[in-house]
């Protein structure tokens, strides 16, 4: 992540290597700064989202994710730094090519679902007739066909959220920005939303979404950035993030454990009837030979790759997480 100037605990190689044109980036930002009062809520964030990618902005609560997205979309102006959206210097110039689902969902309660979707499309340049037609088809596809002519105030929170999401893609945007899209949805609707994000990517759209739920990011993101305390701490793929942590082994001896700790790496801890420890740099073979020779045997052995959650905790730091909490 050569473009990020701020000190950070982990970086990977620049993912834009080999891409020459700024037009091939759906979103770029350099040194974005936003101050509320005397506090830097966003403090020099850089982002580069390749076209056609699903890109996650991860971070604990209060990390500055929403503020970053709002600056990228031109809802608020940055106090410092620069950004481009679909190659345009000002986000407003390409607003018809962008879809947005804000963190705080908002629809007019007196509008019918189909009208609400068409209205959101009309704001982005889609004519009302096409908007209504597409809205009905999308609602049918999402299993909400029965709610098409119901007013928003009659819908459940999850259904209304889905309606708003459909409204953000009805005009078939090139870039879809979703701020905490999974919050407030039950597992079934979360699954639907994941399907919709994949469908949008397959259509060729770029998806930029923020979340603090690692599971979604792990399943969906081609690339991600992790923000904490207003600063970008990591940028790369999910695999890059996970590679920041060493492999761990879980070993279960066959015979009693007395005196076994002396033969294990120093960080070994008892867990689930066995021992968990970081894989030594030279490999596990030497340790296993010692254990077998000492008569402990091997009842179970598994090599574990750390998840994005572990990487996130390591990158963000427990302190930042506790501060956010």
């Amino acid at each position, binding site marked *: 992540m050569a473009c990020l100037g701020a000190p950070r605990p982990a970086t990977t190689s620049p993912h834009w290597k080999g891409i020459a044109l700024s037009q091939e980036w759906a979103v770029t930002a350099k040194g974005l700064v936003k101050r509320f009062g005397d506090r830097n809520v966003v403090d020099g964030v850089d982002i580069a989202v390749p076209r056609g990618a699903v890109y996650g902005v991860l971070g604990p609560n209060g990390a500055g994710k929403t503020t970053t997205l709002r600056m990228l979309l031109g*809802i*608020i*102006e940055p*106090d410092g730094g620069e950004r481009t959206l679909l190659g*345009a210097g000002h986000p407003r110039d390409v607003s018809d090519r962008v879809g947005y689902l804000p963190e705080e969902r*908002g629809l007019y309660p007196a509008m019918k679902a189909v009208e609400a979707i068409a209205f959101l499309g009309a704001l982005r340049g889609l004519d009302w007739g096409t908007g209504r037609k597409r809205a009905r088809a999308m609602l049918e596809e999402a299993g909400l066909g029965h709610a098409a002519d119901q007013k928003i105030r009659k819908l459940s929170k999850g259904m209304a959220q889905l309606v708003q999401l459909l409204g953000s893609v009805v005009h078939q945007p090139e870039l879809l920005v979703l701020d905490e899209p999974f919050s407030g949805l039950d597992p079934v609707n979360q699954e639907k939303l994941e399907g919709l994000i994949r469908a949008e990517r397959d259509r060729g759209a770029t998806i930029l979404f923020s979340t603090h739920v690692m599971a979604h990011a792990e399943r969906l993101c081609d690339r991600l950035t992790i923000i904490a305390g207003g600063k970008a701490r990591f940028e790369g793929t999910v695999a890059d993030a996970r590679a920041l942590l060493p492999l761990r082994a879980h070993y279960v001896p066959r015979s009693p454990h007395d005196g076994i700790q002396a033969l294990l790496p120093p960080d070994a801890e008892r867990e689930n009837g066995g021992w968990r420890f970081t894989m030594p740099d030279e490999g596990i073979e030497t340790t296993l030979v010692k254990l077998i020779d000492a008569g402990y045997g091997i009842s179970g052995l598994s090599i574990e790759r750390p998840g994005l959650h572990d990487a996130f905790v390591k990158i963000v730091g427990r302190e930042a997480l506790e501060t956010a909490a």
Partner: protein
Amino acid sequence: MSRFRHMIRQTLTVARRDFIATVFTPTFLIFLLAPIIMMSFGMIGGLGAASVAGNSIDKERIIAVVPADEGRALLAADARLRPVFRRGDAPPRLFIEPPAADPAAQARALFDRKDIEASAVLRGPLASPTILYGNREESRADYLARLAEESLRDARVPTTLSVATKQPVHRVVATASGHGQAAFFTVFGIFFLTLLLAGQAVGTMAEERSNKVIEVLAAAVPLESVFLGKLIGMFGVAILFVGFWATIVTNVGALLPAGMARGLADIGPAVGMPAFPLLFFAYFTMSYMLQGAVFLSVGAQASTPREIQLLSLPITIFQVAMFGWAQAAAANPDSWIARGAEIFPFSSPLAMGARAANKPELWPHLLAIGWQLLWVAITIWIGAWLFRRGVLQSGGPKLFRGRSGKVPEAAANIPH
């Protein structure tokens, strides 16, 4: 699509939503028919007042304590003079009472009776009568004195001395006072409609803020378009309201007596027809837009319904102040007060409406409408800027710094 057309389209999308959301609700019917409720209350109050006043009028009378023959002469004179008065201005009915032993005491006692309300009482010979009258009833006493004199004149010269032929004349050109009245009605009409309708703009952003829709709007549409769209949407509602009532009033006007219609013909605007109604509509539009933009901007800053309620008073005071200033301008069309009211953007539509009634030149109106349009744009721009900074907590762009559509060099070069 050019940026301007793009903005217009987005503005109209917001306007359409607001218009439909307001008009296609049961509440709108209450709003539309509110004048009927208002008139009903007025009628009920008026009937009550008329009933009270009627009772009082029935009892009120002027009395002559005179012998029967003098009484007949007085009644004859009264029958001749009374048609001169318009309805409502006529003195109370005349009653004759025969004199008792002490006419002075009798006359005084009439004021103390409960079954009647004597406003003036005449006694004594008609050549030198004594007339008693109550508080502020001197005109009644004068009328009795006039009746006494007429009775004596009739006794001496029993024939009619002069028979007049009356011919009504209809003015083709409105008088100066007709212009003045037209100016007054113009200012009052624009003020009244704006007062009734523009104040609604104050709470229109509250819906977006409470529903969190503002975030979606702000991401898709420039705030200036949101503000202008909401203003146009509400103006559409106002036009519907005005159109509905104008149609009714026009049809009721056709039923007015011919005499009243002729009376109204004297009230003529200096610019003539059809320029005057067009200018009236243009200035009502400008007045609505200007004051509506101020109310919308101020109301957009309010975060609770209570704050919006608190803002209603200063808003009404502001409107009344503009009305007062424009009225002064209408009364003194050549004064510096009038020039000031015509130039100050928020009183300009009212004052220029008055000018259309007072002065025939049309070109100042083109200038004024352009000037007012400019201020509509400025007010919306400032309102959107304040909203962006205060509510969305956005930093730049600065108020007087334009934005460039150029790709920032540093950001564009990130990948290279």
